[in-house]
């Protein structure tokens, strides 16, 4: 869901986007089966660090959240919690077909089908799982869209928060669980 009225970016935001495009820190939190494609992308053969990307330990320090695969409802709660702990501007990249339309788990009761209903996605990478070459290509595209100011998922989340919250409530109930099992 895109923002209809594109407000122009002022000079500070353009400068910030210039830096944010060239230095992206990913959160070291990879869900699902696509996580296996991350180590080859980070290490010697497909070196992610030359694009300026690197892993960081906690959501407070990270810029991009990689949803690498399917999302069960249990994981979706934690992913939404972590996403809200991240600081603006933040981006989401979804790997694989499970985030687009459910993939091979489209008829499961425990997974979600369309990630964009719950969290604003900036970039999808097609494949099951996408290989490191595809991932590097996608990161390049992400960098260009950040530089142009088009990766505005965080702005969409704030602007359309009722839409996202409504979908989250319909799918998983409450994000921060309060029941006698946990407390």
């Amino acid at each position: 869901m895109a923002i209809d009225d594109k407000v122009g970016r002022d000079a500070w935001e353009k400068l910030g986007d210039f830096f944010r495009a060239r230095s992206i820190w990913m959160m070291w939190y990879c869900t699902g089966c696509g996580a296996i494609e991350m180590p080859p992308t980070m290490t010697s053969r497909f070196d992610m660090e030359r694009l300026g990307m690197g892993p960081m330990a906690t959501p407070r320090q990270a810029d991009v959240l990689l949803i690498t695969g399917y999302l069960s409802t249990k994981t979706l709660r934690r992913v939404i919690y972590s996403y809200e702990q991240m600081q603006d501007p933040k981006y989401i990249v979804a790997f694989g077909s499970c985030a687009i339309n459910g993939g091979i788990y489209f008829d499961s009761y425990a997974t979600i089908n369309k990630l964009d209903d719950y969290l604003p996605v900036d970039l999808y990478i097609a494949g099951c799982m996408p290989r490191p070459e595809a991932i590097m290509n996608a990161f390049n595209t992400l960098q260009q869209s950040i530089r142009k100011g088009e990766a505005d998922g965080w702005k969409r989340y704030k602007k359309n928060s009722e839409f996202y919250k409504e979908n989250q409530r319909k799918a998983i109930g409450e994000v921060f669980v309060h029941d006698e099992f946990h407390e």
Partner: protein
Amino acid sequence: MTLMNFFNALIFVLFAFFMQTSITGVNRKIMARLQKRRGPRWYQQFLDIFKALSKSSISHGWVFQFGVVMAVGGIMATVMFIPIGDFRAFPGTDNIFIISYLLAVGMLGMAMSAAGSGNPWASIGVGRALTNMLAYDMPFMVVVVTMIFAFKTSSVGEIAEIQRNIGVLGWNIFRLPLGGIVGLICLQGMLGKKPFDSFIAPAEIASGPMVEYGGRQLGMLFILHELMTFIEVSLIVNLFFGGGATLLEYFIKYFIIYTFANLVSGISPRFKIDQAVTFYYKAPLLAALVQGFIVVFTGWGVTKWL
């Protein structure tokens, strides 16, 4: 303490930041080549810091923010005390004890602000960092006391000048060889590089003190780390390698020593914190004491040298 001194100090801090951050970027490339990768651009570290400064941030209270400012402030003040060649931003303030103890302000500020976040990972990381400081400072301070006794001065700039009087063989790494080796081992601990970086272990304790930092606090923390590295490597260059009569000479020595420390960290595993303490209290402390006895009781290397 004229206005010119303050202006010089500001330029010096900016220069130190610029120099160290570029060297860090080049070293990231060197480390990547060590691991058969390509590595980022040489100015990647600048991009990281400015990106962090441009993001929005959260705070857990006033001490969370105040600690960061106090740490960076203290470290900026310490940078102004470092001598290079004949240049001193504020004359008469480069006493070795002032520099070592003002470094502790940086550590205390960061520790205060990290513990103020309320996250137990941060407190664990801070506890480890302080224990690490107790470990590496012991042999280093014994060597420093030996040098103060030997050269009859505790000013870093003067110790550097005394070494330059005889040429290359006047460097303390040749005069006090055991002390020099101990200094380099302690540098590894001071910089917080492997094998002594268990206090910012990313996967074990979620990066320790930095766990709740984001946005401008993280940017300030990176600046803090760069300036602390500058101070520590400068101390070693001035105390053991004769400082630098010219800026170019200083830069070359600085680059070689920092790259050497980085390469050692690239091939080392990580010590647990009690292993680090027992490591420093065995061979390095013994070597420092032996060096001290040699200098105090025989004068070899100081009075009996070329």
